[in-house]
């Protein structure tokens, strides 16, 4: 039917399955994020650590190329677990930055003009909506983090041979579990902040505040009490310790790893509570 007819008609065609409606939220939010060329360029930059990692692994196994640039195969002292631990940090940081850039506009834009009631008057639930928005961050952060990490791990295992991959399975596991955990925690946290703080710069400031000011506060508590109890609110240390425990490397502070997990789980729980409180199609009067 042509638009010039300007008449009203029912829709009798096929409809998409209900379970995929959350993907619509994701699709439009992703398109919105990449509508900014500055963000697209920034995102490509965030893939740099992975690209460098792949290049270094390739370089360390290419003797002829090393000789051409005047290096030996031992130039990096071998690709030890420390290399991968270092690389993990360089992947997690840009992931956090991407989350900080993208998240504030994910939910706040829908809340600021009451569009949430339009979403929720459709056959999607509050949970679908949050999952749809979380998927945006998962899709954006995965190539930067665990997908890139596993790519490097698999490349190293392939080039090294001799059961290197099996003997160093902890590295692959640390990349996968560590980054997935980081993505879940940071996604929920940033979405919760986005739901409560609608002014983007303030939301970004709040995110940095939670990560870095809380870290400083935690260290102050540790220094005053002479314990590691402050680490309970030290989010970056919690994730670092969890990852290091999987790597089999040394952890910081004296808290058991279980309490580091507790910090991460508690952060997720508080974030979910904040989202549930805020993501309503209406204001409930008392």
């Amino acid at each position: 039917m042509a638009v010039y007819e300007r008449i009203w008609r029912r829709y009798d065609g096929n409809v998409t399955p209900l379970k995929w409606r959350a993907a619509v939220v994701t699709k439009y939010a992703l398109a919105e994020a990449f509508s900014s060329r500055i963000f697209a360029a920034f995102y490509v930059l965030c893939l740099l650590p992975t690209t460098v990692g792949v290049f270094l692994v390739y370089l360390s196994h290419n003797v002829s190329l090393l000789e051409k640039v005047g290096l030996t195969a031992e130039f990096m002292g071998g690709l030890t677990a420390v290399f991968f631990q270092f690389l993990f940090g360089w992947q997690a940081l840009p992931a956090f930055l991407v989350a900080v850039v993208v998240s504030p506009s994910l939910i706040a834009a829908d809340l600021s003009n009451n569009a949430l009631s339009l979403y929720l008057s459709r056959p999607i639930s509050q949970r679908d909506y949050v999952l749809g928005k979380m998927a945006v961050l998962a899709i954006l952060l995965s190539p930067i983090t665990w997908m890139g990490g596993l790519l490097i791990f698999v490349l190293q295992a392939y080039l090294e041979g001799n059961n290197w991959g099996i003997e160093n399975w902890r590295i692959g596991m640390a990349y996968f579990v560590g980054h997935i955990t980081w993505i879940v925690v940071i996604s929920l946290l940033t979405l919760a902040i986005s739901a409560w703080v609608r002014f983007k710069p303030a939301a970004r400031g709040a995110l940095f505040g939670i990560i870095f000011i809380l870290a400083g506060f935690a260290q102050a508590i540790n220094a005053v009490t002479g314990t590691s109890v402050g680490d309970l609110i030290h989010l970056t240390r919690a994730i670092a310790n969890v990852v290091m425990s999987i790597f089999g490397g040394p952890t910081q502070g004296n808290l058991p790893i279980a309490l580091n997990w507790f910090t991460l789980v508690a952060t997720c729980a508080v974030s979910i509570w904040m989202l549930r409180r805020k993501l309503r199609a209406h204001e409930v009067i008392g």
Partner: protein
Amino acid sequence: MNISHDLGAPVLELDGLTVKLGRRTILDGLEASFSGRAIGLLGPNGAGKTTLLRTLLGFYPPTSGGARVFGRELSSSAKEIRAEIGYMPESDAYIANITAIHFVRLMAELSGLPPDAALERSHEALFYVGLGEARYRKVGTFSTGMKQMVKLAQALVHGPRLLMLDEPTNGLDPPARKRMIDLVCDIRDRGTSRIILSSHLLGDVETVCDEVLILKNGKIADSCDLEADRQANKNFVEVDLEAPNDKFDSAVAALGCEIASLEPGKLKLVMPADVSTRELWIAADETGAGIRRLDLKRDSLQDIFLRAMEGN
């Protein structure tokens, strides 16, 4: 399913629906059933009209009782019910930084339309509501009237079986208000979608609706079938003659009218369904009777509303 085939089947059934928010009872034991093409929700501010709409959308859980929309239980089929509803909320509701076409397409896809169909129907819906030329503008730049129209477009883009319109003429100037009401009447008359119109403007409801639920303090103050009333009262006429005229009385009696004489020269007629006022004028002309006044009498919605407000 073609709605024109299930006219007469209940659109909305309320079974003692009670909704409490906090300690306040907002809806109190609503019991009613509606099957008209357009159902009006009337009541003063705070009567519970918007809460009823939101409850039907599943935003508020019923505290007790229940409701059915097209025979589906609200408690067990909220998503299925929402799939068949287009909702236009009372307050501003839009995403400011995207274009109207993008916004309406997003809402269409959320309602289940595949991307191509969603895009096609978004164009159609925006042209239908008169925003065709503005569809590539960001919604945040729209005037109040345009925002109301884009809200209507997103509500009807997926061709819902039921349109829920909450104060659709809010903030509109008279021409825009007339255009909105004309659009709603057009949708009603096409017979493919039922309408629930919530408003405190009696004129809007009287123009659009054939059934009315009047709420007051969360309770049903009255409910009536306006269309039945219109049908029943269409043949009820008061005639003032310049002077008593027996020939005229006989002529209208011959037409099959029942006559009650209020006083000399003043008649109250109940006309058969196939007799129109034109035939009364012809009879007057033929009998030489001078008609000073001829009124089709019926209760206006205003009368019904005021009685309902006073009666509670």
